């Protein structure tokens, strides 16, 4: 196994975990069009207390009769009892989630997957480049940094969306800025009210002075954006061991058993979803692989 793969937390279960554990929806917050954040609490108090996750991990969210979908956990890892998932309604299962109300019950299986290397990048500058629905899997990193600000150098969040009304978590930006995170935004198309940058995220790299010797780049989002962010990062001589990516594929089991999420030798659910880029390099730019 490549040493570039992120070490996973030790397996909690020796058996593959196939059955969900039930959780109640305690709040639903509409974010942008087609996306709402659902906060779940496990019904069983023992499970509620035992559950914990690391930034970047995901749960398989079950709606009985509809199926399961892999959804990143987007809430603060310091609070493991109220688990937030920002869900984009795009398929059968996510639309079924979208029809649920506060008090309804879903199944959760997890947490699964590798996590953002918040420990390995201590002491470095952190450049988070993301867009659209790519921010939710990175928000737990932002929270972790906020709780541990002194452990990191310069921290920049470069976040873009198609239009201003598709920027997520806008009410939190001021708090993040106050806590020492340089939040920089961009949109593909502005509107009457927009006075900020217009352009896709990767093209704004040149505006930031990034020290390639000590910057870690974390990126997640539409794969086309990820490709260009990596291109820009490598063009700035950031070593590919300092670039981390979270990928997404069709997932069914979440544990490397069903085969769906494979990219070359990796199971995105178990060897990822967070990868150090040098592990992905042989496969990443192969079309339709």
């Amino acid at each position: 196994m490549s040493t570039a793969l992120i070490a996973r937390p030790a397996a909690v279960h020796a058996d593959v975990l196939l059955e969900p554990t039930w959780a109640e929806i305690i709040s639903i917050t509409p974010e942008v069009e087609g996306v709402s954040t659902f906060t779940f609490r496990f019904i069983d108090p023992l499970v509620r207390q035992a559950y914990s996750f690391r930034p970047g991990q995901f749960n398989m969210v079950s709606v009985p009769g509809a199926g399961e979908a892999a959804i990143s956990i987007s809430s603060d890892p310091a609070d493991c009892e109220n688990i937030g998932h920002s869900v984009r309604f795009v398929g059968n299962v996510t639309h079924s989630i979208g029809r649920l109300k506060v008090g309804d019950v879903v199944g959760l299986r997890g947490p699964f997957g590798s996590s953002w290397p918040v420990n390995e990048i201590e002491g470095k500058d952190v450049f988070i480049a993301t867009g659209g629905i790519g921010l939710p899997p990175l928000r737990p990193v932002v929270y972790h940094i906020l709780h541990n600000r002194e452990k990191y150098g310069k921290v920049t969040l470069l976040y873009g969306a198609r239009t201003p009304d598709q920027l997520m978590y806008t009410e939190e930006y001021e708090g993040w800025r106050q806590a020492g995170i340089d939040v920089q935004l961009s949109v593909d198309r502005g509107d009457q009210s927009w006075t900020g940058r217009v352009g896709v995220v990767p093209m704004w790299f040149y505006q930031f002075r990034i020290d390639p010797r000590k910057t870690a780049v974390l990126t997640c989002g539409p794969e086309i954006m990820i490709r260009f962010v990596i291109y820009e990062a490598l063009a700035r001589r950031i070593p590919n061991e300092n670039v981390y990516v979270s990928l997404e594929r069709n997932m069914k089991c979440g544990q490397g058993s069903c085969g769906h999420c494979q990219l070359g030798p990796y199971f995105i659910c178990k060897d990822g979803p967070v990868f150090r880029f040098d592990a992905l390099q042989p496969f990443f730019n192969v079309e339709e692989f």
Partner: protein
Amino acid sequence: MPEERLPEIGSTVSIQKPVLNTLLARLRDEGFETIGPRVKNGTLVYGALESLEELPRGYVTEQQAGHFRLVYAGHTRYFDAIPGQPSWKQFLFPARLELFSMHKNGKGWEVSKPQPEKRNLAFIGVRACELAAIQIQDRAFIREDFSDPLYRSRRERVFILAVDCLHPGGTCFCASLGTGPRANDGFDLRLTELDDVFLIKIGSELGRAMMSGVPREAASAFLMSSAERSIERANENMGRVLDTSDLPDLLLNNLDSLEWDEVARRCLSCGNCTQACPTCFCWDAVDELDLTGTQASRVRVWDSCFNPDYSYQAGGNTRPNIRSRYRQWLSHKLGSWVQQYGTFGCVGCGRCITWCPAGIDLTQEIAALRKETVA
């Protein structure tokens, strides 16, 4: 009364052929359901096997790319016929299995698990390639980090009577993968069919115990060398050859080759190969809901990387055409499988070649890829 002296593990005995019925009866007395190759509907399947007489004695199978015929040739051997499409995978990894059911209870759901597996199965006639395939699936389902209780509970209840292949078929290439024609370790008993007797090698304590009460003799040196010669002949008479010397790198370094476009013109993406393949393990979980919306079942079914929906997610498909899907299958089976599980995923059984309606032969595809890259 003197206790019967059972043969040691690793030793080989010879039995008269009808005595196999005594062994089958012994297995049934111990609670095993004996399953073996049966002729059915013009092909070979794995079904209940009560006695030697039910084996496909005298049959051969003609197998070529996209061609299978079961032919009665009239010879005297019981275990000669190279298998049809079904493999032992259907028992250890059933094509359809309920994982659990959910019953709505107020706002919440109660989960009921199905009854645990209770059947003890004795696989009679597991060919060398098939034994290797079972061991490959063992590595996929029973891992250090996670193991699948559904597979494990079935696997633990299986008795394996392996069989050496002495007359390989038209699409066989086990010798190229080192998985046959002699069955490697991992069996309870291993049978080699000679003209007059079966040689039985003891492979485990369980195999040893099942020989109790089965009339036998120590295998003579003459019989053993006769078996060796047959195996050597089989080794030289494979229907196909696959050069694996530059695999897996040949595949993983040539993902952009034009050969993938070439095979995509012929491949139908029908998935027959993955269904017939004894090592393919991909599965899907499907929810079934009744009309009242209160009773749901989550069912595990076989899936295939050739299925157009396999890579569909969030409104897009990462493998939207046949070229990308065929490449995924072959570059996994003989490529990335090695990094994942330490062996090739292919055992050289030839089912994918025989059962491909387009007659695609992966030994030829690998050769074509090699030629295109070296040229």
